[in-house]
Each structure stands twice: as structure tokens, then as C-alpha cells.
């Protein structure tokens, strides 16, 4: 399901270090999807989370629970989002998806699962796909972050991938579409002329419950070479 995720374990001590230094896993270039879940959770705990006995009330098989945080303090940082430096107050345990959606008003990055399963939150960090729901904002301070809102040219022209998704009627309900487009852009950057099967592999970390896969593949193939 998340086969475009190459997990990497940054080791016992480096998660906190990364948090401090702002060197997110994605910046190591080791994995397409950056932070591993283990590192991610460790990062949150290091940042001062509590795990209470109420776990059973929400923590059920196969799904994450919300981690309440006591006494967390926001810190003002700079983020390079869609080519613009944005100053934003960020909590230590805040995910990039939450920062984008709730602090910067960039709601095109969707939250489908909030645990690295569906890919609706896919954004690019220095042209590499990352699940924004499982990336701590503090770890991407030195990255160029690209979201779906950053694709259109200043004059309003669509990115060729966006145009291809329109021409092939790629989306159905549209909720996974931003993520599909971001993954397509990353694919075509590294492999401008993919086969249909390569495109399937590259987009396999992006779920579509409507099952619009065939039209999405048509869109990718149309965009190939033009993006």
C-alpha cells in the first residue's frame, strides 16, 4: 500500500538531534518518503508528549490515536513553501500537514488517514515525495516545500501534469487528486518517460477509494514528456 515508502531508521539518538537541527529524514536523501514512523513517534515523544492510561478508549488495532501534549510551546520558524518564505509559529510535535492546512491556509494538502497509509497529504520536499501527515514541520526548515497550490504559474497557467489530469478526467471525488498529482510530478522529474507499469509503482503510495487508477494512469502517460 505504501510501496513508495522506503523506511529508514535514523538510529536511537538522531531523531531528537534532527528535531533540534532541522535536518529531517527527507533531507538525508535515504528515503522517498522521509521520516519513518518510528522516528516520527520518537520525535513527538522527545518533544514532550504524554501517553495516558486512556489509551484503550481510542487506541485500536490498525489506527493511530491522537497524542495529547502538555505544556507544548510554539516556536516561530521560517518555511520555504511554494517558493515563498513563510514565518509561522509551530508546535514541536506539529506535522507539516497541520502547519500547511491550519497555519498557512493551504488546504489542498488533504488528510485522509494521518498515518502514512493513503498519500492524500503527499507534498514535495526538494522534489521528493513525502507524506506531510507524518513529517514534523520542524524537520523541514531547510527544505523547499512544494504543495498542490504551488504548481500553477503566476499567470494562472496550469502545470502540464494538472492539465493532463483535466484532459483525461483523472479525478473522481477529487480528494486524493492533489497527492496523485504531487507523486506524478516527482515521478516525471526522475523518470520523464515512465511505462504504465512504472507509473503504477510510483503512484502506489497514493490510495484512491473511487478507484480512478486507470484514468490517473492515462493522465500520467499524457503528462509524460510534457512535464
Amino acid at each position, binding site marked *: 500500500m505504501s510501496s513508495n515508502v522506503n523506511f529508514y531508521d535514523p538510529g536511537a539518538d538522531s531523531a531528537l538531534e534532527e528535531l533540534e537541527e532541522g535536518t529531517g529524514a527527507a533531507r538525508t536523501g535515504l528515503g522517498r518518503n522521509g521520516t519513518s514512523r518510528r522516528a516520527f513517534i520518537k520525535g513527538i515523544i522527545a518533544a514532550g508528549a504524554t501517553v495516558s492510561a486512556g489509551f484503550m478508549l481510542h487506541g485500536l488495532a490498525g489506527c493511530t490515536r491522537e497524542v495529547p501534549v502538555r505544556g507544548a510551546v510554539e516556536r516561530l520558524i521560517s518555511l520555504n513553501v511554494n517558493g515563498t518564505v513563510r514565518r509561522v509559529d509551530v508546535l514541536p510535535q506539529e506535522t507539516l500537514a497541520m502547519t500547511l492546512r491550519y497555519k498557512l491556509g493551504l488546504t489542498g494538502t488533504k488528510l485522509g488517514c494521518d498515518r502514512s497509509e493513503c498519500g492524500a497529504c503527499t507534498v514535495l520536499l526538494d522534489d521528493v515525495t513525502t507524506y506531510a501527515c507524518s513529517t514534523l514541520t520542524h524537520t523541514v526548515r531547510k527544505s523547499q516545500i512544494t504543495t498542490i497550490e504551488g504548481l500553477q504559474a503566476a499567470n494562472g497557467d496550469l502545470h502540464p501534469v494538472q492539465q493532463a489530469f483535466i484532459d483525461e478526467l483523472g479525478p473522481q471525488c477529487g480528494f486524493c487528486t492533489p497527492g496523485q498529482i504531487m507523486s506524478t510530478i516527482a515521478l516525471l522529474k526522475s523518470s520523464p518517460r515512465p511505462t*504504465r507499469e512504472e507509473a503504477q509503482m510510483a503512484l502506489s503510495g497514493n490510495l484512491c477509494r473511487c478507484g480512478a487508477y486507470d484514468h490517473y494512469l492515462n493522465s500520467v502517460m499524457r503528462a509524460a514528456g510534457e512535464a
Partner: protein
Amino acid sequence: MSYKLIGKNFTPPDVMAKVTGKAKYSEDFRADGMLFCKLLLSPMPHGRVLNIDTSEALKMPGVAGILTADDVPPIPKPATPILTNEPLYVGDPILALAAESEELAAEAIEKIKIDLEPLPFTVDPLESLYPDGPNARSDGNSAGGYGKSGFIDTVKWTARDFAAVKEGELPMGQHKYEWSYGDIETGFNKAKLTLDESFITASTAHHCLESRSAMAYWQNGKCFLHGSVQSQSFAVPYVARYIGIKPEDLVFIAEYCGGGFGSKGVAYPIMAIPAYMSKKTSRPVMIRITRSEEYFLGTARPGFQGRLKIGFSDDGRVTAVDLYIVQENGPYSGGSDYLSAADAISLVYTPENMRFRGIPVQTNTPPRGAQRGPGQNQIACIIEPILDKAAKELGIDRMTIRKINAPDNHTKYGQKQGPVTSAYLTDAIERGAEEFNWQEKKLLSGKRNGSKVIGIGIGQAYHSAGASGYDGLVRITPDGKLHIHTGVGNLGTYSYSATSRVAAEILNYDWENCVIERGDSRKHLPWNFGQFGSNTTFTMSRTNYVAAMDARNKLLEIAAMDLGGTIDEYELKDEKVIHKSDSTRQLSYAAIAQRAIELGNKFDGHEAPEDINDMTKRSVAGLAGTGLIGVAKDNLEKNGTPPALVVGFMQIELDLETGKHEILDYVAVADCGTVVHPMGLSQQIKGGAVMGIGMAALERHVYDPQNGLPANVGLLDSKLPTFLDVPAHMSAFAVDKPDPQNPVGARGIGEPVQGAAAAALLGAISDALGGHYFNRTPVVADMVINAASGRPQSHKPLQVNTF
């Protein structure tokens, strides 16, 4: 018939927002001072709240309010409540808490102490039917039946019922619903081959990618609600009822819906929480539903434990069907899938004689509701492989046996044996066989390549496809634009826009000059049916047709009034009304719209037809004086069930060592009348097929019978089909024969597209195994390995929610 717009591809107006991230779904809205709401869910499958201590939580700075079941109106039993003091499944919402931030709300929820008394529970209908079996609810174990709904009673079978059957056979004790036509005894006596098969279909979660978040606030006595709903106008009275207000006091915004598949068809209780919380706190309230909450609240397809006895004459004709279904119905009202399953059999295989019996049984698992092809698709997964088994035993080609039993325009449907508007399944089968190259492909059955074997399957499925009696509303403004007001909703099929083009077609409009008004009840929308049940294409092309015809008449009337002569002397062309023999006598639509405003009365909406719905009347009144109004109720002839029929052909390669299949080819043909939007149809056929692949071979509820705990709440564990589970190429075709009871000949199609693919895959797996029939969905890899190696399955024959 040749059309300018119908049957042509176009870019639906909402696609642009979807590819740019500008499309706003319910969780994308913000309001000043917005609070965040979190839910406390039941940790046990059935319990009673003895005490709730919220004191610690309420002491926390920033906590704004708590709602319990005592703070919201009770919902008549056995329907799903908004909040409950007797949770009936793990995940049932007990209370909601709002705070300044979501983190704070989550932390405050942890401080709440709940004293819960555990009560008996069950996750297996048959267990509940045992003489001393547990009841899922304290007031009974079976909701609905006897042709009624809205009640609950207790049904137990006798020990004799259970003892009367052989191992693996479904016992058939007291049922709650029965119908029949013909005489099944005569039918079975006539049969050369009779099969009696017990079967299981798994319950499956909807897993809409957009969880059902909602945001609400109050302003000037009105409640503003941003919700994730498939439907627009049809949802309004039901949402208003949950909130306890009049429909006209609800401003309902549902411009985009991130997947519903039936689970967001109308209104659902959790949507009311932010409205009540906002009323309590005088602040806007957002409830972000998490992925796990979506699993619990997002409803599920009911599973079946059933038995199908089916008789065939020596030429393959179905002489008799005797169907019995025990439906796993969840803890609340549940669904009517078992009834729809029986209706589907009566149509797709036209049995000469048929009897249906069934009973819904409650379990302590998530609430059941309609999921894409509710009932029809489950039964397609079961009966289609059984048809293959019969064909094999009778020595008949599998494609031929389907044609022999296929419905036509004279077929009678369901319990009432009513007419269909038209049916061309045979055409679909023939077209599919040709496109798939059936005659050659079927020879590949069983061909081995190492551990891999070729399997070929055919699947058919049905759903009804349209309704009538709703309203259409269009408006031509003095700038010459046509505004098509549509209240149908935006499920993601683009049918809201494809059917709007019917109005443009009738009025001879350039599509560039048309505007679709939708997605917000303030946009003066007509009363339309909901966007579910594969009905939109049929229903909405009728409403837009009647509204456009009303506008057309008014255009002609004004032209004749101002330019002389009778309306028969004029025609509509290039957005003008032109005299047929003297083209100097012409008026543009823009000019006539201005005249309509001057003339008032019926022309500009100051008068409205008597027979339209009150909601449409309010919308017409709101638009009065802004242009020429076309408005009418759909009173066109409809005296039958419009069917949506699909046949799918699939080739797979099944690995007998790993149990995995790879789909090499899939061809599907839809019988949905005139094709109105080829790309949209292709999306439905292929997207539905993907969901069908999940239904056939991947997805199921998994419950621990000891503790009633779910084992696959998340998306990964639920194994939704990914890009890697589907073929790189699929092909979609249509019969494209017009339906006589639709003005443009169109019918819907969105549901059977799933069942056909699911059944084709199951048939292909059985074919690859040389005719091993599982009588169960899903058929997962370990079942294939067991079958291939002659080992017994790890589950008992009638076991449900299997690991």
C-alpha cells in the same frame, strides 16, 4: 438521435478546483473563533454508561463544552443515535468535547472518567439466533422485517433448526420476510440439475478517503453547516431534522464530497454534533473525524450468511430459485440489502419460479448502511460462480448460460413482478464477448506456466437506475447566460454536470454560456433526489429536461407576443428565438430574459407551478425578477424500473504457491441507455471495477469474537485496492441503446460496475482452480493456497468476520 452535447466529452466545471487544490471539502473551511471537537468512543462492544465524571476536563482552561447523549435529542430506536448511553459497538460515540485547540480537546477527553457496565454482545448473527444466544441490543436482536421498519424484536431459532442441517449448511429457522412468485416445487421438479449452496459474504467498511468531518456555526437564527454529503437538496430536510430546525433555517454547504459510496447518501447523526456544540458554546465548531473514527462511524456493507437453491433445465434455463439470507445488520437500523439481493436475482436470471426468505440480525459491529450495490453486489459475488458451476455440470458455455437467462424489455422484476423500462443485457454480453475475445480466451482456462494458472471469469450485476417526480429549475439572465440550478449533489461521478447539459441541449445553448448553480442551499436550488442508487443520470436528465422545456415554451411565448404570430412559427437557434420563415423577426435569449422580468408573473418566477416542492417554490421566489425562469416537476411517464446492468470479462493468472492473482485483462460493458458522458462512464466502469476487486479478494470486516474488537480499522490493514492490485489496462464499453422512458434515453450505472468485476474475478479464481467454488467473499490468498493444495480452510464454513 443526434445531439450537440449529449454523448460528447466535456470538462466538468469542478475538475479545475480538484487539480489545483482549491476544491473545498468540509474540513477545509475555517471560521473566526472556531473550536475543535473530539469524540469519546466506546471501548467495548456493548455496555451501559453508569456515570460520567467530566469535572477534571471542565476545569482545564480552554475547554468550552461537553455534549452527552442527555444533551442531544433522542433518535427513535433502532436508528443510530447522535450520542449514546448504551454503546452498541466498539467505537460508538458516547460524548463530544470542544476546546480551543484539537490537542487540548484530545487531552481533556483523557481526563473524563466513564463508568461502563459491560453487557452481552455478539459479532455473529447465527450465534445470536441460537436458542440462548446473546442479543446485540437490550431490546432485541432483529431490526425491521415483515415489510416494515422502525422496530426491533427478538428472534431465536430452535435447537431443532440447527440440528436439522448438515455441517456447513445454513440452518433456516424463523424468517421475517418472504415473497414468491410461480411455484418453486414445480420449478425444481422440472430441473435437470439442482444446486443447493450455503454461502457467506463479508461485511466491508466504506473507507471513504475523506472522513466525515463537519463544521457548523449559527448566524441570525440559521445554522450554517459544511458537511461531507453525496447529496444536496435531498439531504437538507434530514440534516435539519437531526439539528432540530426547519429546513429553511439550515444553510447547507456540500459542494465537494470526498467519497461516499452510499455511506454519505443523505444525512448521518454525527453531522449534528458541531451544530449542537456551536449552539451550546456560541462559537463555530469543527469536528475532524479521524481515520479510525471514520471506520466506526462510516457504516459498512452488511454481510450475508445465506443459502441458494437453484434449478436448471438441461438447456441451462433457470427453472427455480429458493433464496434464504441471514443479514448481519450491525447494531442499529441496518440495511435492506437482503431484499435487494433477491430482487436482483429475479431480474438478472429471470427464474421461472422463485421464493425468497430472509431475516436481519443485529451484531455489535459498526452500523450498516448502503454500500455501492447494496445487496445486488453481494449476491452477484455468490450466484455468478454458481452459474459457472451449473454451466460446467450441464456442459454449456458460461457465456451462453448467461444469455439464455438474460432479461429483455418484457422481463418482470422483483417481488411485485413489475415491468422494466428496457433491458439489453444480451447485447452487453455479446459485445463483451467480442471485445474480450471470449471464444479464444476461454480456451486458455487452466493453462499452466510454472506455479501460475490462467483463469477466465464472467460477472454480471444489476441495480435499479432512476426515479421520477423531482423538480427542475433553470434561469436565463439578461446577460444571456443559462443558469442550471441543480440540487443533486457532487459524489464525484460528474453526473450533476452531465445531466445539466440536457437543459443546454434542449435550449440549443453553447455550453460555454451555461453556469451550473450548486453546492450551497443559498444558491436557490430545486428539490432533487439524492445522489445515490445509480439514479442521477435518469432522474436528473428528466428534471433538467422538463425545466428546459418550460423555459423553451416561455421563450417562444414572449417572442410570439412581441414579434407577432404563434409560437409554432418560431424556433430556437444560436441562443435566439427566430421566426422560421422570416429571420428578421428574432430576439436574443438575453433580450427575452429582460422582457421576462418586465412581464413578471410566471415568466420571471413571481408565479410558480402548484405541484412543485416547497423547497423549489422558495428557490423560485428567491430568484424572482432576475431572469426568465424555467421550472417544472418531472411528471413524465415512468411505469417501470429502469435497470442498470453490467457484464464484465476477466482474465487472471493465479499463483498456486502464493495464492495471489494478477489481473491480465478486464473488459466491461454497461447497459445504461444512451451514453451521456463517455469519459464519466469510463470512470464509473473502471473505478467500480477497482472496488469490485477489493470486494472479491481483499476486503472484509475482521472481528475478535471473544472481545468484539475490530482487527483492521486502518486503511493498510483493510487492504483497499491500490495501483498495484489493478490491471494496467481496462476496457469499458456501452450498449448505447436509448431507454424509452428518459427524454435523452439515459439510465444510471454507478453500482453494478462493482459487482460485475467482483463476480468476474471470483469466477476467474474458481476457473483457475479447475472449478473449486468457495461460496464466500472475499477469496483471499490463504484460501486459494488451501484450495490448491487440498487442505481444509482455516475458517469454519459459516464463520463470519474471519481473521
